């Protein structure tokens, strides 16, 4: 696919200019927060509509507006801000250092990952050597520090939640690595910008199994039902987050919002790469993100929660089968399809 030519087309020299990159990274912080909030809002709104509820209001009626503002689109952010104003409690039984530092590191990982994932038309840090591997590391670390903080809480609920999270973690992180590896293998690129600028057709068409795999991973990583086993509130209160309150809990919620942005953008960057080559494709990026959110919501509202045993068995089996298919397709594309006109744009 030819990159569109126009005013918005940024020259490669500008894209590689360190000052420009630094500026875009700084701009990306509020933009990322904005988009993460919007995604959080859409997820809530869509779930609510499926469940015969109103959800957060887009336009608050006149009577209520002076009290709660004219819109509640920013509800996910308000929730976090409210938590920031609450008491930050640490249980006496907790290992205090690990318990209180973990939310910051988890949040930092999810937030920094945002810079290594490109935005339509903006490289950010995604052309850094091996940026794909860095992103994988950061996404894994965000989950790992959640578990670490929970296991330092000294509460039975947290420990059970942490153990369940670890068990799921083993499954979905394998899926994450395999899915991205399959794409990297076909394109022979380990930087995300390299994948974006690769001349091949979008990977969603070439290797749909890898795309499906990443979608399955998103279900686990974002704790979408039926895989919110670690946070099963009726069984183990709030799982890993049981003992967290105030700012620490707010940071975890923010981590989740950023993870949602990271994963959705990563999915689009890797599997519908061409739309990341120019700012003009932003509408397509939005459409892609909404479609992904819609699919996530559908899965969320249609399912009750799995038990950990059946959940792991079912989810593990599906992930393994899809992983194998994704690798086979990737290998086939690499050995037999390379250079063939059918796969290049």
């Amino acid at each position, binding site marked *: 696919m030819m990159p569109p030519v126009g005013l918005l087309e940024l020259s490669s020299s500008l894209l590689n200019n360190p000052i420009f990159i630094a500026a875009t990274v700084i701009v990306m912080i509020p933009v990322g927060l904005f988009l993460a909030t919007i995604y959080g809002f859409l997820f809530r709104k869509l779930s609510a509509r499926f469940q015969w509820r109103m959800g957060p209001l887009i336009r608050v009626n006149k009577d209520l507006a002076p009290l709660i503002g004219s819109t509640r689109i920013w509800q996910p952010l308000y929730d976090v801000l409210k938590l920031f104003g609450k008491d930050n409690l640490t249980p006496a039984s907790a290992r205090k250092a690990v318990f209180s530092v973990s939310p910051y590191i988890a949040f930092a990982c999810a937030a920094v990952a945002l810079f290594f994932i490109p935005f339509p038309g903006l490289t950010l840090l995604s052309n850094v050597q091996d940026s794909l591997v860095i992103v994988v590391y950061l996404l894994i670390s965000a989950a790992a520090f959640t578990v670490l903080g929970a296991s330092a809480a000294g509460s*039975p609920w947290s420990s*059970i939640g942490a153990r369940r999270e670890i068990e799921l973690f083993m499954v979905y992180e394998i899926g994450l690595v395999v899915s991205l590896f399959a794409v990297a293998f076909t394109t022979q690129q380990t930087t995300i910008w390299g994948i974006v600028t690769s001349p091949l057709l979008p990977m969603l068409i070439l290797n749909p199994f890898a795309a499906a795999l990443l979608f399955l991973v998103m279900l686990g990583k974002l704790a979408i039902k039926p895989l919110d086993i670690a946070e*099963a509130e009726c*069984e183990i209160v709030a799982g890993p987050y049981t003992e967290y309150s105030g700012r620490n809990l707010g940071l975890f919620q923010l981590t989740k919002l950023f993870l949602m942005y990271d994963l959705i953008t990563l999915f689009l960057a890797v599997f519908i790469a061409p739309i990341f080559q120019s700012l003009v494709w932003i509408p397509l990026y939005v459409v892609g993100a909404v479609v992904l959110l819609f699919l996530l919501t559908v899965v969320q509202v249609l399912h*009750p929660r799995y038990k950990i045993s059946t959940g792991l068995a079912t989810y593990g089996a599906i992930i393994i089968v899809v992983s194998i298919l994704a690798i086979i397709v990737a290998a086939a594309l690499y050995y037999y399809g390379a250079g063939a006109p059918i796969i290049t744009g």
Partner: protein
Amino acid sequence: MTVGIDPNTLEWLKKEVVPEGTDFKPLRENRVYIRVKPQDVDKLAERFVKKLGVRLIHASGVDLAQFGFDIFYIYDFTNLKDKLVVVLEARLDKDNPTIPSIGKLTWQAAWPEREMHEFLGVNFEGSVDNRHQFLPYEWPNETESGVALGQAVEANPNNPAPTAAGWRPVGINPKNALASLIPIGPYHPGVIEGQTVYIRLEGEHVVDADIKTGYHHRGIHRLIERRGYNRGVYAAERICGICSAHHGIAFVTCVENLYDAEVPERALYLRTLLAELNRIHSHVLWIGVAADILGWKTGFMITWGLREKVMDIIEAITGNRVNYGIWRVGGMSRDISQELANAALKTVGPLKENLLKLLPPVAEHPVIKSRLINVGPLDYATAVDTGAVGPVARASNWKIDTRATNPPHAMYDPKKISWEIKYNDHRDIYGRLLVRVQELFVSIDIVAQCLEYLSKTTGEIRNTPKMIEPGSEAVGLNEAPRGELCYYMRAGGSELPSYMVPPGKTNVQGSNLPQCVRIRTPSYRNNAVLPYMLIGSALADVPIIMGSIDQCQACTDRVEIVNDKTESSYTMSWGDLVRMSQKKWRDQ
């Protein structure tokens, strides 16, 4: 309606069943009162339960001040004789209130004995379980209760050896329970009301379980005793917000059995209509709660949305959503117009269609099946021995339904209303789900038939009650959504000095207050069965097993529920409430 006891049955009881009985008094509706000696109680229980297969409905006691205690056992003989209920009563000495325990024969009696032990101070010889039922374990102090907080946990739960009857009582020693690894409750997202389920885990597997209730106990028996028959029904209704109609019917049935009551047919239909509407909304609510426990918010929202349609019908008929306040001794207080009956009939059809669209796919959902099948197992023998009732028992292949065997004063006559008992052999939570879903549709059919009748006829809805003779006793049974509900009442009265007695009259003065009221709710039974289902399950299954019996803690402890979820913080006076209710009726 009133049926005296069949003379042959009385003879049969005297000769063959209870030859030890010293006093036989037929009560209304084929119920018999038999006085026995305290030492014969366990022998009789063994004969009844083990040989005749009779079910114990409830056991309780009355404190008669200086006269001692009356301990009574209500047995359900409906498997042998039509509608026969036997009340065995033994008088205990005040100085030495000791009676043989029947809890060692059958688990059904374990909870009532614990309750009598802690509230009346009655000692049960050979009792297997003497822990507090409602009071905190460590009450009144560590020395007397033998329980100290913070003691070291023993490696094994202190379960007693199997009893002579061959069953092992479940339960964790209080010392261990207080230090148990996972206390689910008193406040926990999986349960709405206060209770504690102690579970001991190995990995994710439950190896030991116990339940502690008593967080709601406010003594409603006494409240009703002091309010009398006519005002007591409002208190009875408020025992449970979800099955208030069934408490109302059971209460008035019990009072009507204290005298020769005649209830107009239209009132019977009205009672059935409301009871079944109540059952529909209760079961729909349960499906929603179960979905929520399984983490399926969509199911919760949609079922509760449909439940509102039922609540609308109830509100149109009674003016209230939860506590209807229309139950009267001898009939009902409000009639339903033919137009309203027709209008309600029109909404029942679409409701059934909507539920048919929703519920069968829910029952077939693969994740729901994986969560419910073979979870919370309860086989027939355990169900019978532990005294499970309602959908829990019916899902264990036990065809038990008080509406059929010992109906309340409502219209469940199979000649006039066609309905059937739904039961199955799944013996797990999935079976309980199916029973409730099927029952719900049966209830909708009953509602349609009642509305059909009410829309075509008119008539009286209440007869004036008669005087209640002092000392008369009655049992009122009803099938609530959660299972069999039992009310026992004994009319109050006092002896007059002989110089005050007119010639030709008895010296007993009647009273408008009952001497005693005893209530056995279905959750009281099913909660006792709970530990049997929990042991051997996974931690993830614990909330849904607890949910599967449709727990009602308020019922178990028998209290008034006070909902304080008011958003604004001003207090309404009685006058405000009266004005509000008047305004509501003016506006309509």
